[in-house]
């Protein structure tokens, strides 16, 4: 069983190594390309490369383990990149006395500028349009996404979100 299990784990470990290696090289040396979309593509390519090289050794356990690794890694990556809580902890630990007031946090990590930059990012990504008077509207793809979101919020009976 142990030997069999090791055989099963060869595929996910190999695929994960390819994925992490490519991820590290691109994020360190080709920073302009780094994005969440590329990370998803690398995860698929890692799977494909592992499948091509270890074809006969791929089992359903191997596929499940690779899927688990990738989902856990995406949790880590998105958490590190976007988590407000982690950023607050970092700001406090990096401050001179390792102590900050709420006002100091609001000054160093302004939620208003974070909000404005996210709106700008949505305009650049063609999710929102901005009229000359500054008013915002949804594009058709954003409208579709909003409808899906509203459906799921009704489905889950969520009243306070965001």
């Amino acid at each position, binding site marked *: *069983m142990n030997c*069999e*299990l090791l055989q099963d784990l060869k595929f996910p470990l190999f695929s994960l190594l390819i994925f992490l290696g490519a991820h*590290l090289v691109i*994020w*360190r040396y080709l*920073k302009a390309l*780094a994005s969440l979309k590329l990370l998803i593509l690398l995860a698929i390519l890692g799977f494909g490369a592992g499948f091509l090289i270890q074809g006969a050794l791929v089992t359903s*356990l191997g*596929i*499940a*383990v690779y*899927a*688990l690794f990738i*989902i856990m890694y*995406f949790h*880590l990556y998105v958490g*590190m*990149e*976007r*988590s407000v809580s*982690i*950023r*607050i*902890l970092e700001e*406090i*630990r990096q401050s001179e006395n*390792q*102590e900050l*007031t*709420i*006002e100091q*946090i*609001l000054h160093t*990590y302004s*939620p*208003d500028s*974070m*909000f*404005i930059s*996210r*709106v700008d*990012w*949505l305009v650049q990504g063609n999710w*929102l349009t901005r009229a000359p008077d500054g*008013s*915002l509207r*949804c594009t058709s793809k*954003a409208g579709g*996404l*909003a409808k899906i*979101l*509203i459906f799921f919020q009704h*489905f*889950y*009976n*969520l*009243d306070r*979100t*965001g």
Partner: protein
Amino acid sequence: MIIGITSGLILMLTHVILLRILKNGFAKAMVFSWVGSLVFTIACAVVFCLNSKELLTALVTNIAVFLFYLEFFSMICRGFSFHIIKLVHERQPITVSELMVQYGNGMGPTGLLKKRIEGMAASGLLTMNQNRLRADFTRSKAIVFLSRSYKTMLRMGAGG
């Protein structure tokens, strides 16, 4: 693997039902649903006489589906960009300043950040003493150490 995926569907259904019963008990509903889906997986293993490798596959798939679902739900529930899009869709045309006032059921980004800080204090990640915040707990230090090392390694910037 099919058992693992089916247990994921059970997780989702149980979660929807529990959310309607436990109003705003997000965490409790999620934990109970996951435990329910785990019990289903183990029960299937017993009924279908799975060997240890098949059971392991079912359990690993169950955990993967659970983590995927957790991310999906938190995106629906707390996704920042999603909620900006939804708000614009409902109130368009709207200016950025109007959007900021209405975001988070009228709390705005600053109100939400304050709420997050209170949540972090309640969950034991930091201490709040007369408006002064400290993060001296071992797990807070560990999170910051991990985060700083990770961001340095991948040249990611401040994040957040």
